[in-house]
């Protein structure tokens, strides 16, 4: 069974802290994504990676960076956490080849981050 795991379900951090959110997939997928989900705003793409060490900005990259050193792992980094980054963060992965492309994404359970 396909699996995307995220390092924490709940996380509480203080303003100004550096925060790492980790995501691991076991499906050998090329693509990995980080989204944030807020009430009334749906899912918004933060960053996307289509290969090791490759990344592209999504709709809302400001205040975030990412790292993909290995194919199965995609990390989201908040360099200096702020209260407006309190949100649910969702990681996903997908294949590149075939008709599905980016459409059939497999999501992790999410990390609810609270920044105080």
């Amino acid at each position, binding site marked *: 069974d396909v699996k995307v795991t995220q390092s924490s379900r709940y996380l509480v951090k203080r303003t100004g802290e550096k925060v790492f959110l980790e995501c691991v997939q076991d499906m050998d997928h090329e693509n990995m994504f980080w989204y944030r989900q807020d009430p009334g705003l*749906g899912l918004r793409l933060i960053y996307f990676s289509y290969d090791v060490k490759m990344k592209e900005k999504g709709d809302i990259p400001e205040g975030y960076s990412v790292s993909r050193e290995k194919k199965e792992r995609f990390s989201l980094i908040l360099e200096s956490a702020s209260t407006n980054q309190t949100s649910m963060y969702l990681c996903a992965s997908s294949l590149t080849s075939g008709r*599905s492309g980016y459409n*059939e994404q497999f*999501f992790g359970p999410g990390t609810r981050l609270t920044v105080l």
Partner: protein
Amino acid sequence: LAKTTQPISMDSYEGQEVNITCSHNNIATNDYITWYQQFPSQGPRFIIQGYKTKVTNEVASLFIPADRKSSTLSLPRVSLSDTAVYYCLVAPTGGGGNKLTFGTGTQLKVEL
């Protein structure tokens, strides 16, 4: 970018058919349309995907008109367990992974 628009919420009763429509006026030629279901405290889960006309699987049907500017997810005979948020996604099949766009989601509530 293909911006998508969905109703914020819908209510239904068990056994009824539910149709949720997503508007995507700026859809590109190589974009596909996908629908996801999300329960509380879980990540979204793939339901169905299509390019044009009609697609059906064991849980839903997807209707896409010829101009592809909208799509309709049809859930036959819903049950209480179908209460969830439903998202449409417009995304290319290759390249431009940073151009995919989720809708804001439709909260479906099914009652007895």
